[in-house]
């Protein structure tokens, strides 16, 4: 199952990140996790939020370049080496990781967000080995 990530293109300007967060706050959009990829000129802010569609709408209305991206959210046992083993399986099946970041830790389990070179294929491989991918609805309850 694929989930939606809110992605925002932001120029490297003082206060620009804060402006994004301000809009989300005002519209009651809760951020569950985020990652910021930076270059010298611009950054790509990737957000997992409780209401992705609404988040996109309010950001676009406020002049931000926003898009919804398909990503995978995966639960992994909170144990040494479990992520490494998981990635090994993906690699051996020819799946590349475009980017990845952590989401949250919930007792015994942790979860990661990732975008693969081929999301559909990655999804299938993951379910074949008996690991769950989470929907936005499920993430919300974290």
């Amino acid at each position: 199952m694929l989930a939606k990530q809110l992605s925002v293109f932001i120029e490297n300007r003082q206060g620009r990140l804060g402006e994004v967060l301000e809009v989300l706050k005002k519209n009651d959009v809760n951020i569950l996790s985020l990652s910021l990829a930076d270059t010298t000129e611009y950054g790509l802010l990737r957000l997992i939020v409780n209401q992705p569609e609404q988040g996109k709408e309010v950001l676009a209305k406020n002049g931000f370049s926003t898009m919804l991206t398909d990503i995978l959210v995966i639960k992994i046992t909170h144990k040494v080496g479990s992520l490494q083993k998981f990635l090994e399986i993906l690699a051996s099946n020819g799946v590349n990781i475009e980017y990845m970041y952590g989401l949250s830790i919930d007792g015994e389990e942790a979860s990661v967000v990732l975008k693969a070179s081929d999301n559909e294929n990655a999804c299938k491989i993951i379910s074949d080995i008996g690991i769950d991918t989470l929907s936005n609805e499920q993430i919300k309850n974290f």
Partner: protein
Amino acid sequence: MIWNKTKECMSRDEMSALQSARLVKTVDYVYHNVPFYREKMQQLGLLPGDIKGIEDIVKLPFTTKDDLRDNYPFGLFAVPDSQIVRIHASSGTTGKPTVVGYTRKDLDIWSECVARCLTMAGVTNKDIVQVAYGYGLFTGGLGAHSGAEKIGAMVVPMSTGNSKKLTTLMVDFGATAICCTPSYLLHISEILKAEGLLDKIKIKSAICGAEPWTEEMRIDLEKSLNIHAHDIYGLSEVMGPGVACDCIYHKGLHVCEDHFYPEIINSATMQPQKQGELGELVFTTITKEGLPLLRYRTKDLTTIDYSVCDCGRTSARLGRFKGRVDDMLIIRGVNVFPSQVEAALAEVKELSHHYMMIVDRVNNLDTLEIQVEVNPEYLTDEIRGIEKLTAKIGHVINQALGLNAKIKIVEPMTLKRSEGKAVHVIDNRKLY
């Protein structure tokens, strides 16, 4: 539709005869009424009688913007001040503005020319025309206004400065035509899109001028607004908007040749170019009373075509403007026109039409940065995707200019929108 078939469709021989008669009269007129021209002609050993027909025009001296500045404000007027009924002036970004004066007859001819241009663009007395050029010393507003009134259209004198009101009235009045700069029309189309008003407007043609624009931008505006977009040309020294305009076939701009005689010259040798060769456009006014000008160098680069147009008009047509002689930047020894950059960027479908060139000099080396906006639907969440796009734009620019430029992608809607003439270059080099 043709406003003045007699003048716009006369045979080339008849046109030549008319131009010859009018030039002879003009030369005699300026010799006796403008000391500046009398002196210039005398220096060249010319008397009015030496100019017997239009082919003798090459014997006449040129006029430049500096000549107008040197004779600021009214020195080149050919009539007493009491006969001048209107003054306009150029923006004068450097030094003093250039001042132009019109007699009552000049204003009549001007509105006649604008009427011809608007008719070329399909405007009739049934149309509601929003004029969104600045009203004032700039010729755009009042010039377009009087032409639209002449054909009997309902004129809405918007001027510039309130885009919100413009779009509101566009919808409420059911405006069918608009006159403004192309960059302002682009801005308006973005507002209409953002406000969800695109389905509610009735605009069918836009008459855009006062700055050069690309064919791609013209076609994009036509598509996004579902209109015909026309290029109207003019300059205050010669008259104002209405000197030339393109018809619905968009195959060049028809010159009102019975009033303004065009030549294309090589600005280095000052010799005439062959038909179809790019060069500097030069105009001689052959009916003007207030400020008649002989061979005025416009500094605009274009081509000329004398073949008959599909619309039936026989008037000479100017090709798309390639920029201005003095717009040229020299970057690392390479001649660069902003119009080249604009045309190159127009090929990249991911980009909006807005751009800014920033030229600087770092450690004695010229740098060129080009800021562009990516249309939101083409943005990606992967750095790799953006880098790929940046590289693609860099390649297109390099192909067009033979020069490497730093490409900077900025957020949509952040480059400055213009209501008048767009500014596309910031040159931070301190060379003088």
